[in-house]
């Protein structure tokens, strides 16, 4: 096991310990995400130089460029930023709650719930707005069911994991059944949604996620980051330090479930962002604890980068972004399992 690392003393602002390195990582990731975004906006059938893109985004472009950027390409980039940030924040929260680096919402059943809701809408032939609604509803209902089933005189990590895996297995069966119910066209549409794609996203797709992130991210980042870090030392110790453990968990699970469901509604269940972003963030900051802020920024950079790669990797052929994150995440997962095994944590 590695030796305990000295932690640089941090300044406490609004209840959050800001360590210089964590802030630097967050800022660096946001810069990277912006750079990816500018490149993504600049590419396509009507190429634009980065300086043109920045000028147009800030409101100084020609009418044609203005339309292309503001109506067609910017919504997609903003969706990628927000979905990545929301998934990564939810992933960091869950990994800390269940105290396991694999405990991300896509493995604990929450994403499958969104998928079930969305598939029900696809099979009954609903519109894309109804599909988003179905995803949110499915995710929230699944979250409540998992929370209720895992509750037993309090919410504890390992039971949340096992209940989540059981629910995942049931819902995977249900989702498979729903896929066989539709016609081939519907099944293809559902399959594209299940993979996670950012094609053709408009402002109306982003808005709910934007509002939710604006409300929930401060609640989680400012209100719960410190208590969450304390519970990582054990429930009793945290209680002794004045943390209301179960109340905090309820708020955190609720926020994370809402963020995951709304992200799924906006882009589909993009796999592995919630798993990998918190790990990358922890590696970069070198700090213990949930690293919520750095994870959020890393997630945004990760998904914008993956979307850029999905658009450019094969000339003339766009992949859904979920394929890219799935391939990268799968490889990372194998490495992670091997490393965990070596460290004796599995």
């Amino acid at each position: 096991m590695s030796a305990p690392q000295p932690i640089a003393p941090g300044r406490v602002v609004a209840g959050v310990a800001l360590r210089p390195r964590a802030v630097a990582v967050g800022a660096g990731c946001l810069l990277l995400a912006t750079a990816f975004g500018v490149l993504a906006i600049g590419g396509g059938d009507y190429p634009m130089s980065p300086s043109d893109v920045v000028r147009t985004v800030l409101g100084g472009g020609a009418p044609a460029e203005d339309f292309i950027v503001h109506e067609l390409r910017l919504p997609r980039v903003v969706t990628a930023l927000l979905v990545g940030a929301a998934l990564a924040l939810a992933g960091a929260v869950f990994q800390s709650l269940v105290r396991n680096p694999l405990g991300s919402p896509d493995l604990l059943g929450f994403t499958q719930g969104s998928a079930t809701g969305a598939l029900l809408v696809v099979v009954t032939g609903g519109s894309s707005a109804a599909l988003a609604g179905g995803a949110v509803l499915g995710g929230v209902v699944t979250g409540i069911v998992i929370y209720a089933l895992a509750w037993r005189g309090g919410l504890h990590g390992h039971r949340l994991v096992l209940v989540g895996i059981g629910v995942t297995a049931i819902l995977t069966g249900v989702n498979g059944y729903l896929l066989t119910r539709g016609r081939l066209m519907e099944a293809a549409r559902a399959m594209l949604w299940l993979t996670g794609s950012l094609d053709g996203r408009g402002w109306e797709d982003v808005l709910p996620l934007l509002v939710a992130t604006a409300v929930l991210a401060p609640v989680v980042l400012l209100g719960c980051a410190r208590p969450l870090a304390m519970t990582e030392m054990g429930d009793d110790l945290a209680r002794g330090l004045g943390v209301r453990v179960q109340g905090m968990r309820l708020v955190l699970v609720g926020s994370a479930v809402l963020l995951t469901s709304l992200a799924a509604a906006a882009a589909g269940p993009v796999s592995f962002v919630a798993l990998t972003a918190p790990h990358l963030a922890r590696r970069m900051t070198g700090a213990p604890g949930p690293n919520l802020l750095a994870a959020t920024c890393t997630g945004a950079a990760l998904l914008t980068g993956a979307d850029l790669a999905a658009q450019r990797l094969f000339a003339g052929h766009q992949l859904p972004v979920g394929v890219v994150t799935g391939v990268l995440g799968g490889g990372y997962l194998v490495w992670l399992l091997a490393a965990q095994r070596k460290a004796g944590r599995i």
Partner: protein
Amino acid sequence: MKFVPRPPPEQFVVVTESSQISGATRAPEKRAENGRRAAALLGSAIALAAVLVLSLGLGARQLSVVEVWHGLVDADSAAYTVVHEMRLPRTLLGLLAGAALGVAGGVMQALTRNPLADPGLLGINAGASAAVATAAGLLGVASFQGRVWFALAGAAAVSVLVYAVGGGRAATPARLALAGAAINAALYSYVNGTMLLDSAALETMRFWTVGSLASAQGATAAMMAPFIAAGLLLALALARPLNALALGDDSARSLGAHPARVRVGAIVTVTLLCGAATAACGPIVFVGLMVPHLVRALTGPDQRWMLPCCALLAPVLLLGADVLGRLVARPGELQAGIVTAVLGGPLFLYFVRRKVRA
């Protein structure tokens, strides 16, 4: 971190003859226990026979027991076509696949010493699926003969991975299950990706990935039989060494077992059983989890009794699920894989809530 061996979980430890101190005084007890186990085995066989008749008799057209019998033996009877062309292949497939999954689950639980090991939950069936999806998507392989080799390769790869993660050092149930869930997620996102690229693959794969016995043709069961027979025989041969392994490697060695050889044998067994079953009916979860638990309650942890009993009771579950799926959604049907997931999931949750304590 210093490695501290975990004592074997109580439910896996078998009191072997050699570990009994006073054999003479225990003899009547032992006889009573063996009687109980034999009764469990007999009961399982009777249940299996009943489910076989139900599977042949129930469906879109109901047949009585007498009609089923005539349909089986009398080529002129009205039921002959229904029984021979439709229900018999399906029933045989369920029999073989069920036995394979149940025994594979039992062997995996013994191998990883983990009560939550299941070929479906740990991703072995998903590994076979991913290989089959690759074959269907890139090479256009759709027949069972082509598929089975890919499925075996995929199952083998994931078996080794799961063993590397969960074997030997004995991971806790929750951690192993989570690692399996992660493997599952990665493999299914790959399967989804291949289906996305090719709509022909989607059309065949979306029915196959659910896990169903409905695709059975006359020859499928015959083609998968050799793989499953080999797997079952190997499992029976491993029963005694697996008992020894439950006591820990050192004790196993002193009882004359070779831990490394047993593990390799167990991985080969699981691969054969899960690969063939998945190639024929798609990935099915929970059969391999539930049946060994049920059987352990009936026969105790001795693998020599457990594995045969699993082989008899698991098809009861799978065929029961298949029959139920045919009955609840008439004139259509619910695939067996969905029924086992929907019935098995709540049982799993019940087990988690009852057994796993803080």
